[in-house]
């Protein structure tokens, strides 16, 4: 590693083997980021070879595309019950309404397309909350150890015992029905899983030699956490995040189905809620039931497959299997 920059125009020193590219000033930060970029590219290359991961990614991108470009893919007015563009109630799939209509004549296709926005948004937002809390607690517990760790881990274990749906139901019914509440509820009921994984990772990274060395050199806790622990724990947290989004989307659909969702927005879960309340199941209105359910299955599958693929690549223990 060169410590002195070579000014352009100077000949490189003869004694060393010629460098592959022209030498330039390299600060430690540059080196670190170059290394991270290489690691990232390496992971990306391994990911490309993982069939499950690529399929998952493909489906995911498709749904993200649908969510973003919803207005281009469907006419929003066919979702509005009082709009003249809606059809007759309970129309089976036909040329005009590809997925048929619901009990109010709304286009199931349009609702499914626009539903992706809500479901994905809630899933992602709730996961971010869950990950932030979980990662924070996991890092603090793992890094500081001692009684703090015991208390936090005991708390985590207790939370894991509570049946999550019962808890979520109670919270949601008490706090009210809105998108923000749902996101909050899912977020604060899913952090325990993340916290445990993060703590385990922090524990394994904490004892590595370079961390000890940095500490011997007088690095502060903050520095250690941000510059050493976080970058090493980060990738695994990321893989876990993907898996958590899948669970969050399933959670949202369940809560919405039970009537705890936002009454003003249409998600796949609320579609199923309407469908059930309108007796779609017992009267055989399959075109109303299949699209939102399949959408949930596909999106959750996609996230899960990506998450598994990443986990396989990043988690050394799994690679040996």
């Amino acid at each position, binding site marked *: 590693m060169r410590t002195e920059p070579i000014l352009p125009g100077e000949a490189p020193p003869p004694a060393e083997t010629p460098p592959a590219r022209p030498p330039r000033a390299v600060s430690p930060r540059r080196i670190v980021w170059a290394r991270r970029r290489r690691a990232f590219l390496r992971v990306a290359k391994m990911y490309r070879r993982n069939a499950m991961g690529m399929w998952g990614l493909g489906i995911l991108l498709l749904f993200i595309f649908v969510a973003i470009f919803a207005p281009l893919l469907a006419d929003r007015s066919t979702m509005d019950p009082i709009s003249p563009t809606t059809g007759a109630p309970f129309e089976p799939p036909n040329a005009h309404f590809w997925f048929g209509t619901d009990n109010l004549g709304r286009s199931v296709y349009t609702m499914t397309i626009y539903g992706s926005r809500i479901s994905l948004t809630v899933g992602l937002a709730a996961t971010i909350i869950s990950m932030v809390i979980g990662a924070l607690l996991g890092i603090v517990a793992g890094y500081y150890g001692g009684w703090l760790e015991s208390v936090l881990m005991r708390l985590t274990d207790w939370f894991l015992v*509570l049946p999550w749906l019962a808890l979520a139901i109670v919270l949601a019914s008490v706090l009210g029905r809105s998108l923000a509440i749902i996101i909050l509820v899912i977020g604060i009921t899913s952090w325990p899983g993340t916290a445990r994984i993060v703590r385990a990772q922090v524990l394994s990274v904490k004892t590595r030699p370079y961390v000890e060395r940095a500490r011997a050199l007088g690095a502060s806790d903050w520095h250690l956490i941000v510059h050493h622990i976080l970058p090493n724990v980060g990738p695994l947290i990321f893989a876990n995040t993907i898996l958590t989004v899948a669970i969050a989307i399933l959670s949202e659909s369940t809560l919405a189905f039970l009537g*705890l969702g936002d009454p003003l927005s249409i998600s796949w879960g609320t579609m*199923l809620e309407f469908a059930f309340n309108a007796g779609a*199941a017992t009267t055989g209105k399959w075109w109303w039931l299949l699209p939102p359910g399949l959408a949930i299955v596909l999106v959750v599958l996609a996230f899960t497959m990506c998450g598994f693929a990443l986990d396989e690549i990043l988690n050394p223990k799994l690679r040996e299997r």
Partner: protein
Amino acid sequence: MRGYLLGKVAQAFLTLLFVLTFNFILFRVMPGDPAALLLRGTAAYNPQNVAAEKARLGLDKPLPVQFATYMRDTFRLEFGDSFVYQGRSVSEVIGAKMWPTVLLVGTSTIASILLGLLIGIWSGWRRGTWFDYGSLGFTLFAYAMPEFWFGMLVLMAFAGGVGPFPAIFPTGGYETVGAGFTGFRHAIDVLNHMVLPFTVLTVAYLGEYALIMRNSLIDVMADDFVMTARAKGVREEQVLWRHVVPNALLPTWTLTMLSLGFVFGGAITIEYVFSWPGLGWLTVQAIEAKDYAVLQALFLIFSAAVIIANLIADITYMYLDPRVRAA
């Protein structure tokens, strides 16, 4: 051995205390005045009666006193009166709905675990075969599928009848209302109503058990003592059932028990879909009616059930793993 047992029991008790405390705090957060709720819509609704009701319910006392009363009452299994079912105590309301849930969730969980473990064993033993890939694919799909959606599809197919599917099962409920069956005919009637929700609950979760067992089995298959058994001339089936499975069951058992909490979540939604009058169905009713007294007790019951299930798992683990017995 005794140390292990005592430790686990103590832990369970501590967790229960936490749940009780959490439960208490949670329901003091709720908006609205339960006293007013109880009296609203009746002729007696006026400020004095509301205040009197409040005093009767003990809601005007300071919080620590309320907590002490709450703890005492809980251990006496007195949960107060239901807000909605006028004049009936929470214990009554819940008691009436307990058996259907025990019946449905109990049997389906056992079936789910048994089937799941068997599939997992076969899947791991015959790794890489079409059976393995098939069951893995099925597991993944079942995991991604909301169980209530699956319930609705099954309901539509076999109770409502759609397309090629025959409508051979009732659309919901516990028994045929008004038929007045007794004894054996009653049992058959109930079972008939149970077929669909039982199937849905069993299928929805067996994938996870299968996956846990499969992975555990694969790990154990790589252990040295398996080669020793083969070298001794033990037949393959014996290697599997006498050597591999008893060892693979150990981590599987604990992980399986840990996932029981999710079974209760499924119970809530599936009972709702099939109108099965159990605790899950009651939960949904209580949400809609804002019957917090019932909800609070239900939450407690669900949590306690998970804690007890985990304790049972820990105790039975002792019999599975001799290394723990020595501890």
